[in-house]
């Protein structure tokens, strides 16, 4: 993937991807053969009611979960044949995650939380510190480096999580209901932050949400229903606040 192609590059390419949980009578078909392409630089919202398969799809995309069938190519490379360690390397080097529940390490300072992906990337200590500080600054948390999660508000914790996701400059940022635990005003701030990261740093973002308000910030909305993609539309992002 060297050089800058003029045409949009597919970062993510799913074809006929399915995911089945359990077997026999209790079998749940969470994904029933999905085709999806996400190009570099896109900001995609994945929507749908509970149990529609949107979160499962996101977990498969983020290599947090393995599909039962179909092929998933990341930057043209099939992920299906990778083992757990190779998928870990893929997450380490190309992906960033933001979760609904923040998933910060408790009793660990904001700075150390943000440093974590860099530790696994074997970045030397000084450089790690500097990058983590810069990322915290970018999400507007300069001065809170030594705070532990319990000393931060929900919105601030989510900012720390975003800083952790972007500190290793990922190709794609996956956000699973990033505003699910936050109030409206804080949600808007988080969305502004994500939009900025997408537009200024060119990070591809795929975000699961069930709130139309949140989805309206993005430029493409994919709707799921019963394990299938119901619609895939271009969206004119709102620019409120």
């Amino acid at each position, binding site marked *: 993937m060297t050089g800058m192609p003029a045409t949009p590059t597919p970062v993510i390419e799913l074809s006929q991807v399915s995911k089945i949980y359990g077997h026999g009578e209790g079998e749940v078909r969470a994904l029933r053969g999905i085709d999806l392409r996400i190009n570099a630089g896109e900001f995609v919202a994945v929507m749908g009611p509970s149990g529609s398969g949107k979160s499962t799809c996101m977990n498969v995309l983020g290599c947090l979960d393995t599909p039962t069938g179909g092929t998933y190519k990341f930057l043209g490379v099939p992920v299906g044949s990778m083992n757990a*360690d190779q998928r870990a390397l893929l997450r380490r080097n190309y992906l960033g995650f933001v979760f609904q529940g923040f998933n910060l390490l408790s*009793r660990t300072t904001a700075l150390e939380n943000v440093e974590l992906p860099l530790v696994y990337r074997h970045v030397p200590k000084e450089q790690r510190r500097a990058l983590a500080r810069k990322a915290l600054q970018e999400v507007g948390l300069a001065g809170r480096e030594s705070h532990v999660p319990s000393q931060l508000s929900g919105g601030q914790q989510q900012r720390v999580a975003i800083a952790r996701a972007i500190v290793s400059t990922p190709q794609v940022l996956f956000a699973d209901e990033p505003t699910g635990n936050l109030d409206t005003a804080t949600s808007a701030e988080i969305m502004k932050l994500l939009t900025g990261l997408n537009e200024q740093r060119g990070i591809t973002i795929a975000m699961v949400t069930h709130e139309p308000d949140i989805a309206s910030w993005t430029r493409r909305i994919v709707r799921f229903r019963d394990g299938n993609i119901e619609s895939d539309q271009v969206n004119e992002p709102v620019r409120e606040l």
Partner: protein
Amino acid sequence: MFGNAIILALREIRRNVLRSSLTILGIVIGVGAVITMVTIGEGATAKVQADIQKLGSNMLQVFRGQGFGGPGGARSSAPPFTMDDVEAIRNEINGVRAVAPTAGTATQAIYGNSNWSTQVTGSDDQYISVRDWPLTTGRNFSESEVRAGAAVCILGETVKRELFGQEDPLGASIRLAKLSCQVIGVLSAKGQSSFGQDQDDLVLLPLRTVQRRMTGNSDVGSMMVSARDGVATEKVQADLERLMRERRKIRMGADDDFTVRDLKEISSAMTSTTRVLTTLLAAVAAVSLLVGGVGIMNIMLVSVTERTREIGTRLAVGAMASDVLLQFLIEAVTLAAFGGIIGIVLGLSAGALATHAFQVPFVLNMGVVMLSFAFSAAVGIIFGYFPAQRAAQLDPIEALRHE
């Protein structure tokens, strides 16, 4: 990779001070208790063995009566021994190195203003040899003093201290009841016997002196027989029993009215008693080790949920299963090692203090130290590591969703 894992493990220990210290505490208590208990038990065993050694080696005692006797028991009704019995043993039994008769009575010893109630033992010049009991100063009885029943005495360490303090007792005269006698020697200190009796609280006189001037009869209360090196005490014991039955005219089939006791028997009985004691202490300690182990297990298992989600987070941000496992292993090993070392230090210190307080020797049992350390470390590592291993094998999303 290794350096990273160490950083992460130490960071984890540091940020979970409570959990870490509780884990360490479990190991400390387990290891410490076992080491303390076993040290005390082994010290007691060593002490008992040393005490029995002090009584004299290869020694047999001949008492009148049966068993250990008691007031009004068979002992007092059985006829006493005489000097003829002593001579007979000396002359007729092979393998006997020395025989010492004893006759004792309790009396007051007086020197100047000092006054001490003690035990007078009448014997002969063989006594200190039979009991393997050297003099610190002065000399043994001479043959003529023994024969003539001279007014000379040898003091036990306790009597010397009580009557003379720092003064040199040699040549001084002490009074024992109505008898005035000259001090010619002092026995070295033997300390307490295993029965808790002060062995140094005695005054040794020639047997004849005691018989004539104090008890007023010619009885020999008991005899101490020392076997020659390399001679089986069992054989000497059998010969003694045969000779005494003959001399005391005990009919075939009738019970002995005397007892020949081999100190080795007492020694092995005492040793096995303290062994039982040690085992008992070790069992108690093993329970604390187990309780410590359960404590460690609890702490580890309680934190599994939190840790499983943490593992999910780590996997999501790019950790490989092996990164996570190495970190957890280092964490568990570090905690176990910390706890184990603190436990060993505390256990040995407590053991040293206790053995000092009980006046028993301090015996270091490395096997038990290693064993208790290994057990606690194993518990810490197993319960710290295996839940983590299970979590690290999950898909990250399952670990993240762990309830």
